[in-house]
C-alpha cells in the first residue's frame, strides 16, 4: 500500500487535500481533508439578525447569492414575511445568473483543462482538446470570459454587483426593474443564448433540454463531429475514457429544490435512494463531528448545532463536519437535482450506470440549458411598476430555516434569534455533504467512497483520475467549512 497526499488542489474553490492509499494500480482508501477553518457560525453570534445578510454571502465568493438566498429565507421564516411575485422573479434571475455562471466556469475553467494534460498526449482527441481547453491559454478561454462577464451584467442591473450583493432581502429584492431594464435583461439573455448555442452546444437549447435517454444523447452527439461544439467534445472523450465508470455515486441523493415562484418551484425537492424518490424532512438532518476538529462528537441537529474548534482532536482529520440524513450520506448537486426533479435523460443515465464523473458533468451542462430557458420566461413575466419587496418586523425571538440550491447542491441555514440577536447560526453547504469525513460508524463521505477504485498510473503523484473525480463534484471548500 502506498500513501499519496494530493494537494494543493487548484481549480476547485478553496483549499483541499486528498489522502489516498493505493495498491495494484488503484485507490483502496481515501480521506478528504478540508484544511481551512474561518468560523462564520461563530462570527454571526450576537449580531443583529439582518446583518446575517452582510456576513453570510461572504462565506463564499462563488456562490454568495446562494448564501444570501438561504439567509434571506431563514430570516423570512423567522419574520413570517412572504415575497411578492416580482421579488421572486428578480431573486430567481439573480440566483440563476450565479448558478449558470458557476456551471460555465466549472466546465470551461475548472474541469476540462485536466484533459489537456500531457498524460493524454497519445489520445486521438488530444490535439483538439489541448488547443481548446489548455488552462488560461486555450481558445475557449478568450470567448468564455467575455461571454460570462456580459452575462453577469444581469447582476449589475438587478443586484447592484456580484459577488456579495445585499439586494436579496427576506421580503424580496431591493432593486425594482424598470421597463427599459427588463428589455436590457432580455437582450443580455439573447446574447448569452447565442454563445451557448454556438460554442457550448452547437444546437438549440430546446433540443438539448429535450434529450430523453442515453440513445438520444449518443445519437445527438453523433450528428456532428466532436469539434463542432464543446459539449460534443466532452461526450466524445468521456466515451473514450469511460468516464461513466469513474467516481461512482453511493446511490443516495438530496435536493432542496429551487427557484420558487408562487407556491411552486422550477426544480422539486426530495431524496433519491435505491432508485426511489422520497420526501425530504429537514428534521432528519444531523451533523456528526467524530472526524472533525470540533469539541463535541455529535450527531447534532443543525438547529442546536455547535461550532467549538479543537485543532488538537486526535480522532479528527478535517474541519468539515459530516452531515447525515437519517444517518445516511447524501450526494448533492446538479445530478441530484435533475434526478429528483425527474429529467428523463438523467434518470436514464443513472439507471444504467449510476452516478459518475460522466453523469455529474452531463447533468450540470444540461442544467445550463434548462435554467437559461427558465430565465427567459422569468424576464418576460416581470411586471415593472409592481412591488418587488414586502417589509416586515423582526421579532425579538424566533427560529428559521432557509433551504435552497446552490450550483453545487443543497444549502441550508438554520437561525435562532433571542433578545433581538442571533443566538445560534448553523450552515450546511453542498460540499459539506459531498466531502464529509467519516462518521461515528466509520462510514466514509460521498467523495471518499467515489474515489475507491480510481485507477492510478505508474509514477503518478497526483493521479489524474483522482483530479477528474474530485472536480466532477465542482467542490467549494470555503463553503464546506465556512
Amino acid at each position, binding site marked *: 500500500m502506498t500513501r499519496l497526499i494530493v494537494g494543493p488542489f*487548484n481549480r476547485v474553490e478553496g483549499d483541499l487535500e486528498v489522502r489516498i492509499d493505493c495498491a495494484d494500480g488503484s485507490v483502496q482508501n481515501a480521506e478528504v481533508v478540508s*484544511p481551512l477553518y474561518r468560523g462564520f457560525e461563530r462570527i454571526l453570534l450576537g449580531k443583529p439578525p439582518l446583518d446575517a445578510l452582510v456576513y453570510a454571502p461572504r462565506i463564499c465568493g462563488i456562490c454568495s447569492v446562494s448564501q444570501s438566498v438561504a439567509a434571506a429565507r431563514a430570516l423570512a421564516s423567522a419574520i413570517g414575511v412572504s415575497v411578492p411575485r416580482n421579488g421572486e422573479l428578480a431573486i430567481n434571475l439573480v440566483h440563476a445568473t450565479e448558478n449558470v455562471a458557476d456551471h460555465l466556469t466549472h466546465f470551461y475553467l475548472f474541469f476540462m483543462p485536466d484533459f489537456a494534460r500531457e498524460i493524454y498526449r497519445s489520445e486521438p482527441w488530444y490535439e483538439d482538446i489541448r488547443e481548446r481547453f489548455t488552462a488560461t491559454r486555450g481558445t475557449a478561454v*478568450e470567448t468564455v*470570459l467575455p461571454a460570462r462577464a456580459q452575462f453577469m451584467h444581469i447582476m449589475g442591473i438587478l443586484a447592484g454587483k456580484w*459577488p456579495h450583493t445585499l439586494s436579496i432581502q427576506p421580503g424580496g429584492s431591493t432593486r425594482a426593474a424598470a421597463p427599459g431594464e427588463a428589455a436590457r435583461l432580455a437582450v443580455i439573455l439573447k446574447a448569452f443564448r447565442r454563445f451557448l448555442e454556438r460554442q457550448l452546444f452547437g444546437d438549440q437549447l430546446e433540443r438539448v433540454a429535450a434529450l430523453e435517454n442515453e440513445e438520444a444523447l449518443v445519437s445527438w452527439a453523433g450528428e456532428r463531429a466532436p469539434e463542432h461544439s464543446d459539449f460534443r467534445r466532452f461526450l466524445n472523450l468521456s466515451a473514450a475514457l469511460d468516464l461513466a465508470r469513474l467516481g461512482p455515486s453511493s446511490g443516495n441523493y438530496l435536493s432542496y429544490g429551487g427557484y420558487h415562484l408562487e407556491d411552486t418551484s422550477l426544480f422539486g425537492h426530495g431524496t433519491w435512494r435505491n432508485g426511489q424518490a422520497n420526501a425530504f424532512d429537514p428534521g432528519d438532518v444531523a451533523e456528526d463531528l467524530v472526524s472533525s476538529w470540533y469539541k463535541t462528537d455529535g450527531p447534532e441537529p443543525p438547529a442546536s448545532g455547535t461550532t467549538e474548534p479543537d485543532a488538537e482532536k486526535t480522532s479528527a482529520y478535517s474541519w468539515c463536519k459530516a452531515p447525515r440524513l437519517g444517518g445516511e450520506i447524501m450526494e448533492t448537486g446538479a445530478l441530484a437535482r435533475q434526478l429528483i426533479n425527474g429529467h428523463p435523460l438523467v434518470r436514464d443515465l443513472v439507471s444504467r450506470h449510476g452516478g459518475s464523473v460522466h453523469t455529474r458533468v452531463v447533468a450540470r451542462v444540461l442544467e445550463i440549458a434548462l435554467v437559461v430557458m427558465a430565465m427567459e420566461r422569468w424576464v418576460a413575466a416581470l411586471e415593472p411598476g409592481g412591488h418587488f419587496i414586502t417589509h416586515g418586523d423582526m421579532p425579538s425571538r424566533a427560529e428559521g430555516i432557509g433551504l435552497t440550491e446552490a450550483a453545487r447542491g443543497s444549502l441550508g441555514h438554520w437561525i435562532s434569534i433571542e433578545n433581538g440577536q442571533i443566538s445560534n447560526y448553523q450552515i450546511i453547504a453542498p460540499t459539506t455533504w459531498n466531502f464529509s469525513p467519516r462518521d461515528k460508524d466509520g462510514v466514509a463521505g460521498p467523495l471518499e467512497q467515489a474515489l475507491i477504485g480510481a485507477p492510478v498510473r505508474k509514477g503518478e503523484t497526483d493521479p489524474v483520475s483522482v483530479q477528474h473525480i474530485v472536480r466532477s463534484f465542482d467542490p467549494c471548500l470555503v463553503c464546506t467549512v465556512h
Partner: protein
Amino acid sequence: MSMQRIDARPPVRLFWLQSGGCGGCSLSALGAENPDLVTTMEAANIEVLWHPSLSEASGREVVSLMERLESGEEPLDILCLEGSVMCGPNGSGKFHILSGTGRPMMDWIRALAEKARYVVAVGSCAAFGGITAAGDNHVEAVGLSYEGRKPGGLLGGDFLSSGGLPVINIAGCPIHPGWLCETLHQIAAGTYNETDVDEWARPLSYTMHLVHHGCARNEFYEYKASAERLCDQGCMMENLGCKGTQARADCNMRAWNGAGSCLDGGYPCINCTAPEFEEPGHDFLRTPKVAGIPVGLPTDMPKAWFVALASLSKAATPARLKENATAEMLTVPPSDKGKTRS
C-alpha cells in the same frame, strides 16, 4: 525585416495565494472586461506562475515551484494574497495548513513575501483582516501589514518589500476588477511608487474618490430627501446606514458588472474598502442617531454646518423628490416648465 518584440523585458512573475477568505476577489476579477483578465495580464507583461482557480498545475508541481521561489532559486516579482492570514489557534496557524505541505499557510505567506519584489493584498481580508476577523475573531485573522486599523499584521507595520514599497492594499469586499488590473499593470510597468497610495496604502487611483461621487441619488442627498426603507429611491444616509459620503472608492463612477453599484442596487454602502468595516458598532442597515441627528456625518464637513444646511434644504425639497424618495421606483418625472405631459 523580422518583427521585433515591442516589449523585450522578461515577463513579470506573479504568484497568487489564497488563505482566510472566500475567493470572491478572484471571482470578481474574472469579470474583468475590455479586455478580459487573461488578456489584461498578457498586456501587462505578467506571467501568472500559479493562480489557484486558473492554473493547470496541481499538487507536487506547485509545492516544488513554491520551494524554488522560497529558496531564491527562481525570482518572484509580485506576490498576491487573497483572504486574511490565519494565525490561530494561539499563533500556531493550524486553522489553515496548506494542503499537501503540512505547513501553516501563514509560514508560506511570510516566506514568499520576503522574496517578492512587490506584495499585494487583494481585498480587505488580506489588507486588514476583513470579514474573517469579525466577531470575537477567535481564528486570529489579520491582514498582511495591518490588524484592523493597527499597523502590524503578519509582516509588521513597517514592512517594505525588496522593491521598496509597503504591502499595496487593494482593499474592498470584493475588489472591483478594474482596481486590480490597473494596479498590477502599473506595478509591472515599474512605475508604481509610494505617492500612488493613500494613508492605508490603498491605490489612490480609486480611493481618491468617495462612493458618494457619481451616486445617482445625489439630488436626494442635496435636499435630504431620504429613503425610509430598503428599495426606496431616496438618499440612504439618514436612515439606512449608507456610508457613501465617507467611504473611499469610485464605485459610482466605475460600473460594477457593466451596470451597477451597491447604491444602484438599492442598498447602502457599508464602506467595505475601510479597515474594520466588518464591525461597524451598529446595525449595517440602520443609521445610528443622537437626538435625531445621524452620527458619522460626511467627512470633511463641520457638524454644525451640516445640521444647518440639512434643515434648510429639507425645507426646500421639491415635491418630486419628496415623493420619489420613499417610492420603490421613480414615479414622478422631472418636468419642463409650461409643458404638460401629453
